[in-house]
């Protein structure tokens, strides 16, 4: 069993959820303000990285309940999907529009289709961070346990 630092462990546990919320906020704010899918994904990736530093690979991978490679797959499909679907309506690829609904409690909700593209980018970044940890992190873990 590796030696765990109580201070690091507790801090990471406190910061982790806040960082994930921040990353999602950045994803949605990205349309008109600083932020976006890539930045949001990096924040989430950094949060997962912290989790890895504190709790090791298994804890980092447990953040996402599916195979890490599934995230970039879904993300890529989302991003390509937003590029493809305007073609069906004879619009140029990646053409985007703002969809608006009236929801019972929330009132007017607007969603630019560019956000879907950004969500794809977000998933790709998070998924790649997980895949890199999965591919390279195992050895570091073993060394930490061995030493």
């Amino acid at each position, binding site marked *: 069993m590796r030696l765990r630092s109580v201070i690091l462990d507790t801090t990471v546990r406190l910061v982790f959820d806040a960082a994930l919320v921040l990353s999602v906020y950045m994803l949605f704010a990205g349309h008109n303000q600083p932020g976006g899918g890539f930045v949001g994904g990096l924040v989430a990736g950094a949060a997962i990285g912290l989790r890895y530093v504190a709790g090791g690979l298994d804890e980092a991978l447990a953040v996402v309940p599916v195979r890490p490679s599934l995230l970039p797959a*879904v993300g890529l499909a989302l991003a390509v999907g937003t590029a493809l679907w305007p073609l069906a309506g004879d619009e*140029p690829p990646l053409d985007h529009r703002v969809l608006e609904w009236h929801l019972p409690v929330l009132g007017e909700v607007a969603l630019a289709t560019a956000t879907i593209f950004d969500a794809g980018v977000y998933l790709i970044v998070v998924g790649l961070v997980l895949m890199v940890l999965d591919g390279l992190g195992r050895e570091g873990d073993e060394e930490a346990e061995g030493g």
Partner: protein
Amino acid sequence: MTALVPLPVLLPLLGAAVSLAAGRSRGVQRAVGVTTLAAVSAVAAALLAHVDGDGPVAVQVGGWPAPVGITLVADRTSVVLLLASVLTMLAVLVFAVGEGGAERTQAGFHPLYLVLAAGVAASFLTGDLFNLFVAFEVMLMASYALITLGGRPAQVRSGMTYVVISLVASTLFLLSLALVYAATGTVNMADLHTEVADLPAGVRSGLAVLLVAVFGIKSAVFPLFFWLPDSYPTAAAPVTAVFAGLLTKIGVYAMIRSQTLLFPPETRPAGLLLVVAGLTMVVGVLGAVAQNDVRRLLSFHIVSQIGYMVMGLGLFTVAGLAAAVYFIVHQIVVKTSLFLVAGVVERRTGTGHLDRLSGLARVEPLLAGLFLLAALSLAGIPPLSGFVGKLGLVEAGLDAGSYAIVAVSLAVSLLTLFSMTKIWSNAFWGPPPEPEANGTEGGPPGRRLMLAATGALVALSLAVAVGAGPLYGLAERAGHDLVDPTTYLEAVLAP
């Protein structure tokens, strides 16, 4: 029709996503890969028919108009090269399935291969210089991962060379983009055509030479070729084949596109290009003659043949450019099939070293026949496709009065033939090897699939020769468009 233009980029990316999700199920991955590339080939063929009839088609991504937004353009040159590339990639994918090397052991092979296809398509179709950089990077990223797939020590070492050299080229490319944008305020190639003409002559020549250097590294011309014979041969056989067939040719395409479209005739570095072309041919073929390993020998030939394409560009005439376009199509197909033959030989005998190979013609008569056709075509023996391409280049050179480069290209052809006979006499002639020495009895599993894929490519190269009449006509129209880009400019800049 405009809806077809982005598909060659988007479909492989979608396929890569599905392939990535399919993960360890190789059957699904194979089906996705083959279907995607077949679909892209069909799209490219349809585009070619349309573009050849009605002229270039441009698509403004996201609906943003041309000088600001991202433009995709399909014209004769780009689409004919795209079609040849995608068909070749399809054949190599089938070969990889039969070979069962990296394709079987690495779950990442199929997604990476499809991302590579997307990058290749984007490089051909993009209409702006910055997007060309992005497309190159997409392609290179996939190629970095493919060349080191498996992580054997030799691969890591040569992969390192490859990544570092590509990174130098990318940094230089970025630098020239900064200079282009600072000088003109645009990176759209059609817009640059008008903007660059107003620049002072010194700035124009500087930019032209900088871009030649950038794409020269990518396409491995003299003296920037040294990384290629070192890094290509160590990858898995299908990966080497597809790199050999495609990646350097995209560098040449970028060079042709940027030099003809961006710069007015008087600032084109024609003399420099012709000297570089001659030296590339000679140094490449001399390197090849000295090699004893099939894949290394063929890798030096990639360099040598690049010289012919640059020669066509350096002449800057309709005939020269037409011959260059035809020659690139021929090279994509023939070079890849030669590497596939080398792959089968290595799979069969366990070595690619000429000293250890012997008598394959008896054991593998079909393979020997395929090699002979591809090798003779590479050397330019009539009536094969290499002959048509070289004849076009020589005629264009004589018309332009560049006798020196014509003489060099003919001499290099002889040396090419010599080095091909070296492979033939060492590997295919002579006494057949002892039965127990040549690997698996009756050939490895998947041998038929490998031979079928190689055979299909060689047949394609024969088709390039048999259909030389119409294809050369197409290449001539493409060369005409390159010299006089009016229709290209109209397609991009018209609202």
